[in-house]
Structures are given as C-alpha cells and as structure tokens.
C-alpha cells in the first residue's frame, strides 16, 4: 500500500519541498526496513511455493529439535514450525494492512468532519477519542474481544476500536491549523473552490503525518493482534498465528524452538515497519518528537 502510493504522493506535492519524503530512501535504516518488509510481503505471497510442509499436517514426529529436514523443529502435534511461521504471515500481514487502512479511513473522515464543522460534531468525536485513550490499548482491546467473543474477526474489530482515534486527532488538528493557514486563504481568494482547497491545498499536507503514523501502526497492529492471540482471544487453533504459537511455546518451555521462532517473525516484521516509519518521520519533519500520537493529546 505505502510503496505503491508513494509516486502519487510525490505528485500531490509532498516531494516538492527538497528533503522531504525522497530523502528517506537515502537512510540505511529506511532501506533495511524496506528490504525486510518487502521480503516478508513476498514470502506471504509465495508461501505455498516456499513452505516445505502443510502448516496443519500433523505427524508422529513430536518436539523434534531444529534440523535440516525441519529448520525450526516440530511442535506438540508434530507440525513443522518453519512452515507454520511462514503461513502465519498470510494472516498477520494482510490483516495489519486492512486494519490500518480502515483506521485511516474512519479516523480520517471523523477527524476531518470534527475539524471542519467544529461545534458539537467536534465535541462528540473528540470525547470519543478521549474515552478510547483512557485505556491502555491492549486492556481495551482485550475487554472488547472478550465481550464480543474470542475470534480473529472480533480481535480485528477490537484493534480497529483502539486505532482510529489517533488518526481522528491528527487529521482534526491539521485541518484546524491548515484551515487558518495563509496559503489556504490565498488559494481561496484566488477563486479556488472549497473542494479544490481541501484536495489540493490541505490533503497533501495531511498525508505526510498520516503516512508516518500509519507505517508505525502497521507494526503496532501486528504486535497487538499477536498479543490478543497470545491471550487466546484472536486466532483460534489450529490456525497458524505467531502470538498463539508463542503461547504454546510457553507451555513447552524447554522446547525453545516452538516459541522463539514465531517471536522472531513478529520482531522482524514490526522492526521493518518501525524502521520505515521512523525514517519517514525524520525525512518529513526532522524536528518531530517521538510519539506522533502523544504529541496530539
């Protein structure tokens, strides 16, 4: 999603100022993140060709330590851990992209409306975000999933509930400040319609911060989904999922390979998105501080 839409953002004007998004790609960290994330996306697409075993196929060879025939060993049902780790990417990665896209959409629209109309719309949306921010994310996600009933679908819904407010706040803040910016007034005075002002003058400047937040949230989404599955509230067995695999690993503590490798998978995916997001933020706003979310409290 982010890679494909980049040229579009250039055209929208993000790349116009020297030293903006384009300069991110000169950083080693951004390249590392892109390579790592790209590798995972390719893996997720070509899993059936790469994975040596069926992720659900059980065998009599329980708890085999890593070896040439089973790179990451086998689990308590004799399933190949390597194949399961690879197949799990087909669950986590598309869900992460879907989640963040939905959060951007919902949060962006609500935040935009709040900033544009103000008044009671603004009040309602902002108090709703306050409520979500009053809970540590996983606590609320856990409560929502538990109330709805444990399933992957409900876990995704719960993550959506905790993710959209960040975008609503960022977009609202930007719409408010940009709406009063001189260059927008100038554009309106030159005869630009409100539609044109919104699309050409305001939107491109919202895209940057939202892109940074979304890239970081891709990693957070993977982490949160894995956490919910670790709690038994997300993906249900026998589906291969990184968090629930680590959970199984904690029950067979001495078979270190069962929990270690799925955890590595989570770490490498999240790290890739964080490398990318951090580099993008540096490129777009060198002054910006650590947490975009916290800045907009």
């Amino acid at each position, binding site marked *: 999603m982010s890679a494909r839409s980049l040229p579009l953002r250039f055209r929208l004007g993000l790349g116009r100022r020297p030293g903006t998004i384009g300069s991110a790609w000169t950083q080693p960290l951004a390249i590392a993140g892109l390579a790592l994330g790209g590798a995972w996306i390719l893996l997720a697409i070509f899993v059936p060709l790469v994975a040596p075993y069926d992720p659900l196929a059980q065998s009599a060879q329980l708890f085999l330590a890593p070896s040439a025939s089973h790179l990451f060993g086998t689990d308590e049902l004799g399933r190949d851990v390597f194949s399961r780790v690879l197949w799990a990417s087909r669950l986590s990665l598309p869900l992460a992209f879907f989640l963040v896209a939905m959060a951007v959409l919902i949060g962006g629209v609500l935040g935009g409306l709040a900033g544009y109309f103000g008044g009671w719309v603004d009040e309602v949306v902002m*108090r709703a975000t306050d409520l979500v921010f009053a809970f*540590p994310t996983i606590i609320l996600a856990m409560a929502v999933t538990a109330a709805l009933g444990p399933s992957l679908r409900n876990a995704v819904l719960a993550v959506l509930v905790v993710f959209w407010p960040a975008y609503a706040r960022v977009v609202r803040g930007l719409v408010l400040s940009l709406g009063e910016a001189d260059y927008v007034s100038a554009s309106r005075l030159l005869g630009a319609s409100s539609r044109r002002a919104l699309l050409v003058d305001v939107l491109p400047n919202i895209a940057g911060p939202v892109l940074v937040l979304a890239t970081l949230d891709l*990693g957070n989404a993977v982490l949160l989904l894995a956490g919910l599955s670790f709690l038994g509230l997300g993906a249900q067995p026998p589906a291969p999922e990184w968090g629930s695999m680590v959970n199984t690993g904690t029950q067979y*503590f001495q078979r270190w390979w069962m929990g*270690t490798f799925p955890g590595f998978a989570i770490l490498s995916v999240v790290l890739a998105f964080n490398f990318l997001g951090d580099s993008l933020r540096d490129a777009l706003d060198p002054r910006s501080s650590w947490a975009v979310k916290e800045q907009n409290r």
Partner: protein
Amino acid sequence: MTSPARAANREELQRGWQPRLPSRLFLRFLGRRLAALILLGLGITFVAFALTELVPGDPAAANLGQRAIGDPAAVQAFREHYGLDKPLPVQYALYLQHLANGDLGESEQSHRPVRADLSEYVPATAELALTSILIAFALGITLGIIAAIRRNRLSDQVLRVISLGGISMPTFWLALVALYVFFFQLGWVPGSGRLDPGVAPAPHVTGLYTVDALIAGQFDVFASALQHLILPACVLAAYNVGLLTRFTRSAMLEVINNDYVQAARAKGLPEHTVILRHVLRAALPPIITVGGLAFANVMTGTVLVESIFSWPGIGQYAFHSATTLDLPAIMGVSLFVAVVYIAVNFVVDVLYGVVDPRIRVA
C-alpha cells in the same frame, strides 16, 4: 527593570522565605483538570457498562459462565441484581451504584468477588511496575542523553536501532527468551514467583515484598525478593527504554542549539554541566509527559508477561481471565487499570503544569 517579579523577590527577601500558596491561576488549572478527570471516569464506567451489559448476546450467560446458566434461580437472581428487565438508564444507574459499593461482580474462576481478587493481586503488580518504570527512566534518559550528544554519529545510530528494537519486541516473547536464557541455561536468576520456596514474606506493610523486607530488616528476604523481581522488571522495561531513549534524544535536540546553551559554553562551563544543568533541565518537562504512556505500556506488559514468570499480580489474573473468558474478572481489571491510568495522567498533567507554567494558562 522594576518588574513586579523583582519587587516580589525583594519583598520575599525581607520577609524571609515562607511556604507559597498555590496561585489562583494554578487552582483554576487544577479544577479544570479535576473536572475533566471526573468526566473521563464516568465515561470509563459507561464503556465498561456497555461492554458487560449491552454487547454480549445474553449478559447473564456471559457473566455467569457455563455452570450457573443452567440454574434458572441463579439467572433470575442475576437479572434482578443488575435490573436487566429495566430500561437502560436505570440499568446504568444500578451499575454505577454497584460500582460505588465496590461491587465488580463475581469471578467465575475463583468464585470470589472480583474486588477481593484485585486487592490481593495489586501489590505484586505495583512492585513490578514501579521497579520497571524506575529502570526504564534511569536507563532511557541516560541512553537518550548519550544519543543526543553523539547525534548522527555511529553510537547514535546504534542506539537508534536498539531503541527501535525495544519498541518492536513482543514483550511476551522477550519474557520467554529471557527466562529460557537467564534461568534455564545460565541459572543466574530464580525461575518464578516473588520469593524462593520456603522464604516467608516480611510482615505486610505495603504489600511490596522488597520494601516490607527492608522495613522489617530481613535482608535475606529482601535479597530473595529482589532476585525474583529483577528479570521480569527488566523485560517489562524494554519497551519503555526504547521509547524514553528516542524521546529524551529529541527533547534534548530541541534545546541543544539554543543561544543560552551557547552562552553557557561561552562562559566556560564544563560540558557536563551544560548538558545536565542547562540542556537536560529544559528537556525534562516533555519527558515527564511520557510518564503516563510508560505506565500504560507497563500495564500492557504485565498482562502478557506475568503469567510467564508466575508473578501473582493482576496481569496474571487478567491473562487467566482472558484465556478462560471470565468476563466479570476481565472487566474488573480493565476498569481498575483504566481508572489508575487516568489518575496517573492527571498527576502527569499537574506535574507538567508545575514544571512548565505556560501550560497552566493555555
């Protein structure tokens, strides 16, 4: 310059120092924050109410669990207790009334009031969380200072990768690996629980075993408690160390090029004085605001990590409640954590207002 401030200073010098009453502006700021806090608290109870009573298909079934639902008398009693046959506003009012009486429902697992469970488990989590936050702030700020001084050099880049690694690490996985390496392979730390088997906790004062042991002067108990505390606390600190390193670095860089810093250098002050007294002092207020976030991260971590360390806190309680779908217990923990969280954020806000007077006016 005969500013009022200077006049006040002179007056104070003549009177001698006296404790200052909080200004009217500060009281107004405090009142506004307090009102927001109360509203938010009400909002939290509404969210919990909606999740326990509105969302589940049959709240009685969800809250009573499998066993009791077969018993019509129990279902009837539950419906009457929570007024499920009454209109929604009445239900919410009843819910609030129960909360005010400290009634969080009954856990399906322990068959005890959730409140009793919570009060048993909170001290263990408090000890773990406080230690972890202490470690995170000490380490994170130190690393952040180093990164800011050495900005854009190799050591800064290495610290950047490390701190991004810290925030990318799934805590539950880190706990598993750390326990395997440091307990199972190396044997450096004891495995699980808060004390070695056979060691009795010191007499209960605070519920924090390390503090209680020090108060009672039982240093062997203190040593045992500390050994058990150190690994889970470090694991929980990982995320916050990453966060605080990055945050401290950028907060320092915001001020490090200011004229007054140059002036301090030009005066011939040693570099460490400039960095600590002038730069870090100015960078501290934004760092304080991370306190609330750090607390949220630690609470998130405890839910995922405590069960791995068999740490008998509310995190383990929440974990077991989640895996067994003990809805009243889950809601009890969520409500409790959320209330503490907004209280922490309130304190952080007020502290920020104290440290940075501009906030009070805005």
